[in-house]
């Protein structure tokens, strides 16, 4: 156990927040904002879309965080991504979130809180109240970063509340990897990511979540896009006991394009809740959402996908494709894709499938000499491929395939 009994404060109430502030100061979020957020967390109900039901093993309404410690002496802050020298001289800022307001006040205040609205959001309020780690990335207009910037968040014996703020100036381009990892027994990740793209900016944002089997995750990510900006989000939720991962991208300016790719795989007694929403708030905006999910063992999953096309979004073009694969009788996946369209001249498509591996595919592979269990693994891995192939870098794709294969392996050979 790495938690010191003198400094650890259990539970996520006022006392815990006071202890956190006494220990590390306000950081970039002042105390009043934090206490307001905490009050909202305590008062707001769990939104109906995230409520239990259908015998979900994990019910957010019954979530008990009283035993969760908020800091941990053993913990090191997330190492900041290495910045190529050329990027530094071009004025790119990468700063520890807690120092961002002090060191880059104008840039920080122009960006902070612009994409996330925590006023009616219980778990985003909790993340805001305790935000204790994180990274601020600010890319000036026109600067192109070729190398991905990698942010590693590692939770230990205490909860981790990461705040990631990424701002891209007009015509700039960057790729950011957010990796969530845990040490043994980590209880909670509760975080926020704000992604702000000015006009013509292009951001690739990759979420690679491989938390351990004890960890709950309550992550809220919000993006806004200016005119002709492009956002590609690829999100792999492969770990955790109960992972709630919510993403909303709003195309505010005409010509904005959003691609959202999510894959999740719940095995054992994992529960994964993924929610994506793309808002078309301007004309000629485009979006594509591709979701591939699978469940094995007694894994549970839920996908809520929403495309919202506002009345002014003439010529919007949106597609949402969601496919789920059930690999065991005990697995359960719910999929709820939805379209809300208030404009007339738009194109919108959504389709969803759910099912087991087809016997015809298995038989076909078996007639080629491939044993049934191997055929199942091959077909299941192939099922993820349309989502996997949208992740950046072959190295990451190869790593994710290995993780997926390990989850597919029968317990006897695991």
């Amino acid at each position, binding site marked *: 156990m790495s938690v010191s009994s003198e400094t650890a404060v259990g539970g996520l109430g006022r006392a815990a927040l006071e202890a956190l502030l006494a220990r590390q100061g306000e950081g970039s979020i002042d105390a009043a904002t934090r206490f307001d957020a905490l009050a909202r967390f305590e008062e707001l109900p769990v939104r109906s879309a995230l409520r239990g039901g259908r015998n979900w093993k994990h019910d957010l309404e019954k979530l008990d965080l009283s035993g969760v410690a908020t800091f941990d002496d053993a913990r090191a802050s997330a190492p900041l991504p290495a910045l190529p020298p050329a990027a530094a001289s071009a004025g790119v800022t990468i700063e520890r979130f807690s120092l961002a307001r002090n060191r880059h006040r104008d840039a920080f205040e122009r960006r902070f809180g612009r994409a996330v609205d925590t006023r009616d959001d219980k778990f985003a309020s909790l993340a805001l109240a305790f935000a204790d780690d994180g990274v601020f990335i600010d890319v000036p207009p026109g600067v192109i970063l070729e190398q991905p910037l990698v942010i590693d968040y590692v939770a230990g014996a205490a909860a981790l509340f990461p705040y990631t703020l990424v701002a891209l100036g007009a015509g700039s381009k960057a790729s950011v990897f957010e990796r969530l990892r845990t040490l043994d027994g980590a209880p909670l990740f509760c975080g926020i990511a704000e992604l702000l793209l000015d006009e013509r900016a292009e951001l690739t944002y990759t979420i690679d979540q491989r938390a351990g089997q004890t960890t709950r995750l309550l992550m809220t990510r919000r993006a806004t896009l200016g005119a002709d900006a492009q956002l590609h989000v690829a999100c792999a939720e492969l770990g955790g006991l109960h992972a709630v991962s919510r993403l909303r991208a709003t195309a505010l300016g005409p010509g904005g394009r959003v691609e959202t790719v999510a894959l999740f795989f719940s095995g054992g007694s994992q529960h994964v809740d993924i929610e994506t929403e793309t808002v078309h708030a301007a004309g000629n905006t485009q979006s594509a959402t591709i979701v591939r999910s699978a469940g094995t063992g007694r894994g549970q999953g839920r996908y809520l996908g929403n495309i919202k096309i506002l009345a002014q979004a003439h010529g919007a073009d949106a597609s949402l494709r969601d496919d789920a694969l059930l690999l065991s009788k005990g697995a359960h996946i719910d999929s709820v894709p939805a379209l809300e369209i208030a404009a007339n001249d738009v194109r919108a498509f959504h389709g969803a499938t759910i099912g087991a591996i087809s016997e015809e595919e298995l038989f076909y592979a078996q007639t080629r000499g491939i044993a049934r269990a191997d055929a199942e693994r091959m077909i299941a891995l*192939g099922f993820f491929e349309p989502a996997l192939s949208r992740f950046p870098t072959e190295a990451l794709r190869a790593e994710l395939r290995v993780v997926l294969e390990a989850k597919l392996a029968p317990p006897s050979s695991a």
Partner: protein
Amino acid sequence: MSERGLRISNLRASVDGNEILKGIDLAVGPGTVHALMGPNGSGKSTLAFSVAGHPSYLVSEGSATLDGEELLGLAPDKRAKAGLFLSFQYPAAIPGVSVANFIRTARQAVHPGDLTPAKFRALIFEQLDVLDMDAAFLSRYVNDGFSGGEKKRLEMLQLAMLAPKYAILDETDSGLDIDALGAVGASIDALRKSDAGKDMGFLIITHYPRILQHVTADHVHIMLDGRIVRSGGPELANEIEREGYDGIREQVAASVG
């Protein structure tokens, strides 16, 4: 027992409780080509699926041996490892699995470790050439979005790459245009002339005699209502062309009556 060949005797099989095969006897020797012809619904595909081990086809009686090894009762992959190949009339699509990966996995399963990666590559490119296909085909997903002709070419590519002892080709000619049919015919021809394929036995299941203009059958069998009613040499195919299946059916009825 140890007699070589794909030997089917008194095979009876049913689907959903309906008996489709009513006692089939057929022996395909190494290096020979047999054509099994018959109208739709006569049970030709049922024979193919029953011998390959499809779980929906219930064999109630009979046997099917491959060079002496009983196939019935084995899982489909074990039958393939014994040396059987089935070319499907409607091959399944496996999205996300590339042709190259699928064939490599299958080759490794039926002939473990017998080809270095370089030799595997050389062989597959040679076969692509015979089938008049380009290398981009290898990175496509198995049968996913394939045209009818592409599906049948992939079946032939697998046949050549897996080098079985006996191959059942189920309606490989159906739905093919002239070019695709020519490519399929050339592929079988090339295979039969190769070292790997010269001892291969073929059971070509077809409705129409036209594939037999590309591949010469040593023996022709006619199947009606779950039974083989006539067997003969290549001239039997011409008779079907002349008389049609109705003519054959009348002859059979007359001889029985």
